[in-house]
C-alpha cells in the first residue's frame, strides 16, 4: 500500500470529510423547491400520451364517430368492452353502436382499443379521478363515455396526435365514416 493513499485516508478521517460531503447535499436542498405535490390541491402536468380513462368522440358536426364495428372489443386483452350495434334506419347501411360498455375496473389501460378503432372514435383522456363509492358506476355506458369524450375533447385529440393516430383536425374529418350515398357512375364518365 503506498503512502499517498494512506495519507488521504488519514486526512479523511481527521477532517470528517464524508460528513461534509453529505451535509453539502443537505444544504443544497435547503434552497431547492420541494418535489412533492400537495395533491389534490396541486396537480401534475400530464403528458399528452398519458393513458387515462377512455372516452368516445364525436365529429365536429355532432355525429357519433363510432360505427359499432366491435374491433375494440376484439382487441381488448382484458375483455372489458362490450358493443351492441345495429343499422341506423334513417341512414341506410350506417352502422352504429346502440349500446357501448367499458368496465373501467377491468381496463388495463393498454390503449389497444384506441389503436384498433378504424374511425378514431375512442381516445384516452387525462382523466384519472373517477373513484366512487358505488362500484357499479364504474361500468361506463355509451352516455357516460360520450360525456367523458366531450369534457376531455382537447386531451383526447392530443392523445390521438401523440400516438400518431391522427395529425390534425383536418385529418379527423378525412376519417369520417359516412356511407357512400348513391350517385350515378355514368354521369362522372360522361362529363
Amino acid at each position, binding site marked *: 500500500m503506498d503512502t499517498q493513499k494512506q495519507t488521504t485516508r488519514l486526512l479523511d478521517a481527521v477532517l470528517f470529510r464524508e460528513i461534509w460531503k453529505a451535509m453539502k447535499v443537505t444544504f443544497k436542498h435547503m434552497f431547492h423547491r420541494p418535489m412533492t405535490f400537495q395533491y389534490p390541491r396541486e396537480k401534475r402536468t400530464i403528458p399528452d400520451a398519458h393513458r387515462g380513462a377512455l372516452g368516445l368522440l364525436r365529429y365536429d358536426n355532432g355525429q357519433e364517430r363510432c360505427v359499432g364495428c366491435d374491433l375494440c372489443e376484439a382487441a381488448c386483452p382484458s375483455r372489458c368492452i362490450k358493443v351492441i350495434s345495429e343499422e341506423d334506419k334513417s341512414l341506410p347501411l350506417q352502422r352504429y353502436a346502440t349500446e357501448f360498455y367499458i368496465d373501467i375496473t377491468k381496463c388495463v389501460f393498454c390503449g389497444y382499443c384506441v389503436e384498433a378503432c378504424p374511425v378514431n372514435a375512442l381516445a384516452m383522456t387525462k382523466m384519472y379521478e373517477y373513484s366512487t363509492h358505488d362500484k357499479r358506476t364504474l361500468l361506463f355506458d355509451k352516455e357516460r363515455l360520450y360525456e367523458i369524450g366531450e369534457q376531455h375533447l382537447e386531451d383526447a385529440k392530443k392523445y390521438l396526435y401523440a400516438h400518431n393516430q391522427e395529425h390534425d383536425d383536418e385529418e379527423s374529418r378525412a376519417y369520417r365514416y359516412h356511407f357512400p350515398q348513391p350517385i350515378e357512375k*355514368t354521369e362522372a364518365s360522361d362529363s
Partner: protein
Amino acid sequence: MSNTSTMVTLTIDGIRTEVPEGTLVIEAARQVGIMVPHFCYHPKLEPDANCRMCLVEIEKIPKLQTSCSTRVAEGMVVRSSVPHVESARKSVLELLLGNHPLDCPVCDQGGRCDLQDFSHEYTPTVSRFKELKRVFPKQYLGPVIETQMNRCVSCMRCVRYCDEVMDAQALAAEGRGTITQITHWAGNELECDMCGGCIQICPVGAITSRLSMYDYRPWMLKRTETICSYCGDGCQITVQRKDDQLIEVNSALGAGRNNGDLCVRGYFGYHAAEHPDRVQQPLVRQADGSFAEVTWEEALDRVARQFTRIKATHGSDAIGGLITTRCTNEDLYLFQKFMRVVIGTNQIDSGARYGHINGVRALRRVQGTHRWTIRYEDLAQADAIMLVGTNVNESNPITALHVKQAVKRKGAQLVTLESLLPVRSTVSNITTLSKHHLEVKSGQFSAAILGLVKAVVESNLVQEDVAREAPEFVQTIRTNVAKVSWDAIREQSGLSQTDVETAARTYSQAERAVVLVGREVLRSLGGEGLVTNLMDLQILTGHLRRSGSGLGCLAEGSNDQGAVEMGAVAEYFPGPAGLHDEESQKTLTRTWGQAVPAGAPATLPEVLTRARTGDIKSLFIVGDNPVESLPGDAGVTEALDALEFLVCQDLFLTETAKRAHVVFPACSAMEKDGTFTNTEGHVQSVRQATEPLGESRPDWEMFSALSVLMDHPIEYNEVKEIFKEIRGVIPGYGLLGPASTPPKVDEKTVAQYVTSGFKEDVDQRYTLDASPAAPEGALTLRLVQSLYHSGKYSTRAKGLMEIEGEGRLHVNAREAGRLGIEEGQTVRLANDGGQATVSVKLNDRVPDAVAWFPEHFDEPVRALFSLKVDPHTHVPVWKTAHVTVTKWSSTNRSIEERSRV
C-alpha cells in the same frame, strides 16, 4: 367416375402429383396443399374464369393461365408462386379494391372475407386508386336477403349457383362493366327458393342475410355442427351463435349429405328454437283450469303418481303414448322403452304413422329391408330417375338438388308423375327438368302407377329372367292389368297410353334407375299397396336387384325413418322387428331385464278411438299435436277431453298441450345431443348448439326421471349410453361415417314374395277404385307442403314467417279467371264440413280445377276436411276436399256480421 379415368402426372411448384384426367389445375394444386387464390371458382360450379385471380404460369404456354379453367395435362409444369404470377395477383387485387368500399369494419363478412384475406396477403396498405368509386344503393332482395353491390367483385358465383345448382335462375346481372350489379328479374319482389345459397357462396359481403345484419362479427361466433330438424333429408348445418343468441345457420362445402347446400328452412328457419312462446317451465293444470308454473320435482311427481294410479286401477293398457318424429333416435327409443317397460303397453305410435309407415311396410314386405337400397350418390349416377307424387322440391329440397344435379350434370332422364304443372318461374320446379312429365290428376296416383305396370307388361318390357324365374307372378299381374282398360286409366289419372308407355320405356331401359316416392302416394288410402305396385314394377323391369337402382320413400319428418327403426310405432319393436318376432323378443327381454308387453298394439287412430271410448284413461303425448294435425271430424278433442290424465311434452303450448293436465317443457333439436336417421337411412349426430331455454330438458331425461319415480328405474348418465343400448338391440346401428352402405335386397324375401307373397292382395292392388267424383263446379282443395315451411314448427320461425306469413289459396290464372277472382282477393270456401274465408294467390303450377292451401296454416280451413283412415295401415288420410269457391267482398262480411247479431 374417378376409378375408370386415367391418371395424369404433373408438377405444381416443384411437387409432383398424380390426379385423374380432367381435373382442374386449381383442384390439383389444392390436393397438394397449394391454395391458389380465387374468387369466381367454386367446386360446385362450372368454371367461369372471370376474376382472373387464379392465374398461374404453365410451362410452354406464353400467357398466364387461369388455373380454374385449365385442365391438367400429362407432364404439365405449373408455377403458382413465381414473382410475375404474384404481381399479376397483386394487380387483380388492386383493381378489385379500386371500386371496393373500405367498409370492412362494418361489413358482416369482415373477418371471413376472401377479398380481405387475399388483400392482407398480397397488397400494400395504401392504395393508388384516388378516383371516384362507383356507388349503388342498398337493395332488398325479398324479405330476408339484401345486397350491397358496392362490395361486389362480379364473380357471378351467386348467379351461377342460382342457375346451375338450384335451377331457379332468380338472380341475374344487370348493367355492364363496372356498373354490373346483381339483381333479380325486374318488376316484382324477388320470389325464389330463398335457399340462401347466394349468401353462402358470395366471397365478399355483397349479399347478406337481413335476419342478422350488423348483429355480430364473424369471430364472435361459436359454431356447432348439427343436423337440421325440418325434413327427412338430414342436412348438416353449422349453427352459429353469439353468446346464446342464434346468429346464423350455414353449411360448409363438403359437409354432410347435403354437401353444404341448404334450403330456405335450414338457412332461414333457425329462429323457431328461440321463439318467445316456448314453454320454459313445467306447467300443471289448476282446479280452475289455468296452468301454473311449477318445479320439475312437482310436475314429475304428479305425473308419476297419476301414471302409477291409473296403471294400478285400470291396467297397463289404460295408458297410451304418442311421439313426434322430430325427436332424436335416443328419445324415440327411450320413449318406447318407457311405455313398454315402465307402463307395460304396446299402445304407442309416432308421426311416422302419417305416411312414412306405408313405405316402410311395403319395402319390408317385398325386398326385406326397411330402408332404401340406394344412396344419394346413386341418384347422382342414375340414368333414369322417376319421381312419383313427391313434389320433391317442396318436401325434400336437398334430395331435389341431387335430382337436379343428376339431370343437369349427368344427363339423367327424369320421369315425373306429379300433380303440378311444369311451369317455369324463378322458383325452381323439378318437373321443368323432366323428360317425360306425366301430369297426374290430383290424388289419382293409383291409376297412374297401374298404368306404368300395365305399360311395362304389355309393351314387352318385362325382364326375361324375371319372366322365367317367376312366371306365375308375371302372369298374374298380366291378367290383372289386362282387366283395366287404358280408357279407364285415362279417365281417372288423365294420362294417355302413349305418354305412360314412353315413360315406362325410359324407366325400364335405363341401366340404373331410381324411383322416389313421395307423400302424395304415402299419405293416400292404400299407400302401402301403391308402393308395393311400384316394387312390382321394379321386379318386372329387373331393377330391384341391380346395384344403383332402387326405390326410396321420402321421409317428411326429420326422423321418420328413425321412429320406425326405434320401434316407436305400433307394429314394430326396435329393429324394426315385428311384435311376434321371437328373436327380437328374446334380445329385448335380455336387454330390458323384463319381458316385453304382450298387450295389443294401437295405432294413432286406434289410440284416439280407445281414448274416446274410455279404454284409454291417460295419454302421454311427446311433441305430437293430433288436434292440429288431424281434421276436425277426427274427434281428437273429444278423445283428449275424455281422458282422465293427459301429459304433454312440447316446445310450445299447442292446441293439444292446452288440453293437458301437465306440460313438460322440452328442448328443441338445437339444444340437445343425439342422432337422427335421415330418409336414406343415414344416422347422423345431432349436437347441442345452444343452452336449453329456461327450464326445458331433453326428452329422454324426462322419461328416465319418470321411470325412477315410478319405481322402475331406467337410468342413463348421458345420451351416448342410450345409443350404446340401441346398438346392443340393433347390431351395427348407425355406423356414423360419410355414408353408411345401404342394405342389400333380401333375396329370400323377394323369392318368397314373387312365388307366393304377392298373391295375398294382388287382386285388390291392381284394380281401379271408383274415386268419388267432385261435385259439379267444385274445386279440389289440397293441403300441400310449402317450400318455405315444414309442419307447424316452422311457423314459429321469424325468417320463414317473413317469407310466407299466412296461408293463401293458390289457384292458377285460368282457374282464377273462371272463378272471376284476382290475386289478393278474398274468397269463401265452403262444403258440407264448413266454410272458410281466405285470400287468393295466383300460382301457375297448380293444375286446373285444383286449389292448393299450405298445410302449415290450415287452421281456418281444417273444418272443410274429413278424415279417412286406411283400413290396413291406419294411416290417416285427409288432405283433400272438394269445395265451392265464391268471391267474398266486404259487403258479404257485413251482411254476415249483421245476421250473426
